[in-house]
């Protein structure tokens, strides 16, 4: 995995071009198809959301930085389908086997779409471990924004917050840890907290002394301050 996706605070971008509220959701005729194909293939149940984020993050730096948003989705989907052995490389080149797939029994049919989208996949889990921090408590983010379970693996700790001192704002409950879930190592759910940081703690030249940034961080990302 590269860190091309970890964009918070990066320099070098121009002005945002806001769209009107009524602009179309999709700007190319294939965008909606790419979105729907990704959701429908996900419904086969062969990967979780952390694995699909990780697959996008595993695109090469040139691909990640030049692909448009839905191009990233579709490239990562093709990679995931092969990685999870749903498809073979031969399938992608049109030289694969013919006939129905063993997983076709779990295909998402049109009738099942409303229920599938309405169901969602909650990431909270019953809590068994210790709750180390409480709202109001000062904490420090661990100094290295790396996955400590899998070398070079997926993590949801942005580099800009590494080592920063913040304060627990709220406890969100016990949530699946992406650092293990993305790699098939189980949920290993942990307490998840909203942690607030002063902008001046994160940036050398904050725009305003009163500004703050809040991140949702898992307990193992944090240390007592």
């Amino acid at each position, binding site marked *: 995995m590269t860190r091309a996706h970890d964009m918070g605070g990066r320099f070098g971008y121009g002005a945002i071009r806001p769209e009107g509220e009524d602009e179309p959701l999709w700007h190319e005729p294939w965008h909606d198809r790419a979105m729907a194909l990704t959701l429908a293939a996900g419904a086969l149940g062969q990967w979780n959301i952390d694995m699909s984020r990780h697959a996008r993050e595993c695109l090469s730096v040139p691909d990640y930085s030049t692909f448009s948003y839905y191009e990233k989705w579709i490239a990562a989907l093709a990679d995931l389908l092969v990685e999870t052995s749903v498809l073979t490389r031969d399938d992608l080149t049109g030289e694969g086997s013919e006939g129905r*797939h063993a997983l076709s029994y779990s295909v998402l049919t049109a009738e099942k779409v409303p229920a599938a989208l309405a169901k969602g996949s909650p990431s909270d889990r019953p809590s068994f471990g210790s709750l180390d921090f409480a709202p109001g408590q000062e904490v420090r983010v661990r100094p290295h924004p790396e996955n400590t379970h899998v070398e070079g693996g997926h993590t949801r700790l942005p580099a800009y917050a590494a080592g920063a001192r913040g304060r627990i704002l709220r406890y969100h409950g016990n949530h699946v840890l992406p650092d293990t879930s993305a790699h098939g190592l189980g949920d290993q759910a942990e307490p998840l907290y909203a942690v607030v940081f002063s902008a001046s703690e994160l940036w050398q030249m904050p725009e305003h002394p009163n500004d703050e940034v809040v991140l949702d961080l898992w307990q193992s990302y944090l240390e007592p301050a």
Partner: protein
Amino acid sequence: MPHDHHDHDAHPHSLLPSDPALRVKALETILTRKGLVDPAALDAIIDTYENRIGPKNGADVVARAWSDKSFRQELLADATATVRELGYYGRQGEHIVAVENTPETHNMVVCTLCSCYPWPLLGIPPAWYKSDGYRARAVREPRRVLSEFGVVLPEETGVRVWDSTAEVRYLVIPMRPQGSEGMDRAALARLVTRNSMIGTGLAKAPS
């Protein structure tokens, strides 16, 4: 995962056509032929987010919060349960937190790592929300970003940017505009823009 060790050329996606429209079509054809995707299901997913789920859901929630004190309190205490009762629940909206703008604090939402967004309340995110520039800049220079949306805050208002790094999705409750006293809920909902619920806009003034 074997995936981690592939070099660029070995990524399976490079075996598909490079033109994105053809690439999507090719993958849909392969999956459909194997019985893994039902093209009618794709149509149903697109129809859901084009016609059924969008910012009008979030606007309904905001209008209720503006006009009903006990609803507002329930929403701020447990947004997931409160919006679920209205039928706003599902994919990318399993855990919702509502944050309220005040004269002291302006809230604004981003996802610097991908593009997390409260789908059941706001639908599919607009292109700018998913852009590299917004993801990079919203956390470091939110006021400059806001000015590009035409929003200039009073000097004494602090900006609190929420980076959606987990599965919690944030809904901004914009300040109720002056002159909206006495308006009914449906009229109030029409003042609530998508951007005002992301925090890159303000609610519209009544005309």
